[in-house]
């Protein structure tokens, strides 16, 4: 776990300097996640400020040695949700019935591209910014689990704690989110002409 540079043995008494030492290493994680949630730097900064202020005021509740990354993200998630309550609006959330199942595997078969070739002839030609754009296009509930699992590497248990939902909810959001991500990446490959050239390569 993170080591404090402060000589204060108990974080229950943490002052601003001890708090700063604890959270500083995790600002990159918090910044990335705030950017994926808000999509722009000023809104991300506001969310980060509110998150850190609430974390500081509640730092005596943090148990040293437990997962501080998950603890900070849970606060960020709560700050984000209470912000929506205040302004009485929420961004588009996912409804399970409205999301159509998409399988890139099936689409690949329909297009006549060999599944084993997809990495070399399709995926590797999709740029990093397009992956980010595909993640950003997900409804927020799905985007959050995809970011936590696939960008930050959290376990289902940690995600359930961060989002304060059952593990079953994490699992189903992740399934839908990743399927929708596949669809967006596939649509991008089609629009960018990557599919057409993959098929040309195959028939050449």
């Amino acid at each position, binding site marked *: 776990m993170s080591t404090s540079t402060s000589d204060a043995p108990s974080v229950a008494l943490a002052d*601003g*300097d001890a708090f700063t030492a604890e959270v500083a290493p995790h600002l990159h994680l918090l910044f990335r996640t705030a950017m994926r949630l808000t999509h722009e730097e000023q809104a991300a900064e506001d969310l980060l400020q509110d998150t850190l*202020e609430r974390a500081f005021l509640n730092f005596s509740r943090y148990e040293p040695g437990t997962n501080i990354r998950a603890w900070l993200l849970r606060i960020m998630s709560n700050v984000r949700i209470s912000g929506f309550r205040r302004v009485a609006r929420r961004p588009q959330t996912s409804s399970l019935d409205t999301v159509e199942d998409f399988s890139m595997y099936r689409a690949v078969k329909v297009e006549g591209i060999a*599944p084993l070739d*997809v990495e070399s002839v399709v995926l590797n030609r999709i740029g990093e*910014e397009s992956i980010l754009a595909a993640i950003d296009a997900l409804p927020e509930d799905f985007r959050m689990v995809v970011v936590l699992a696939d960008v930050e590497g959290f376990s289902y248990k940690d995600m359930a704690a961060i989002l304060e939902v059952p593990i079953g909810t994490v*699992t189903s959001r992740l399934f839908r989110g990743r399927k929708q991500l596949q669809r967006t990446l596939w649509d991008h490959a089609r629009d960018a002409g990557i599919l057409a050239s993959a098929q040309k390569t195959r028939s050449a």
Partner: protein
Amino acid sequence: MSDGVTKERPPISRAWVSGAASRLGVTEGTVRRWIRTGKLNPSCSEVYGMVFPYLDRELGPEERTEVERHIAACPGCEEHFGFDGMVLRFVRQRAPRALCPPNLQDRLLAPFKGRAAPDSAVE
């Protein structure tokens, strides 16, 4: 039959049973017995529902065995699981991970420098 994306639970086809028998190196009678006794789940859609927990190594030992046994018997699912795993690795490896700009770090931490501990926790 064995494309791994079947929606409803179909009656188990002869072809699936004979394919499974040859892939597993047992007789068709054994495959049917394993299906009857729950040792082999023949439903591609049920097993595919566990694709991400399987790839994420989040399944318990029993479910993990259930998936592995089905995949060993079913070429369609083996290919489908392998494909989704490949896409997943691609996203994980290539998704950019930005760093918090130094001047933003300074702005974020400034309010806490030299600040006294709060009196008590608030919700």
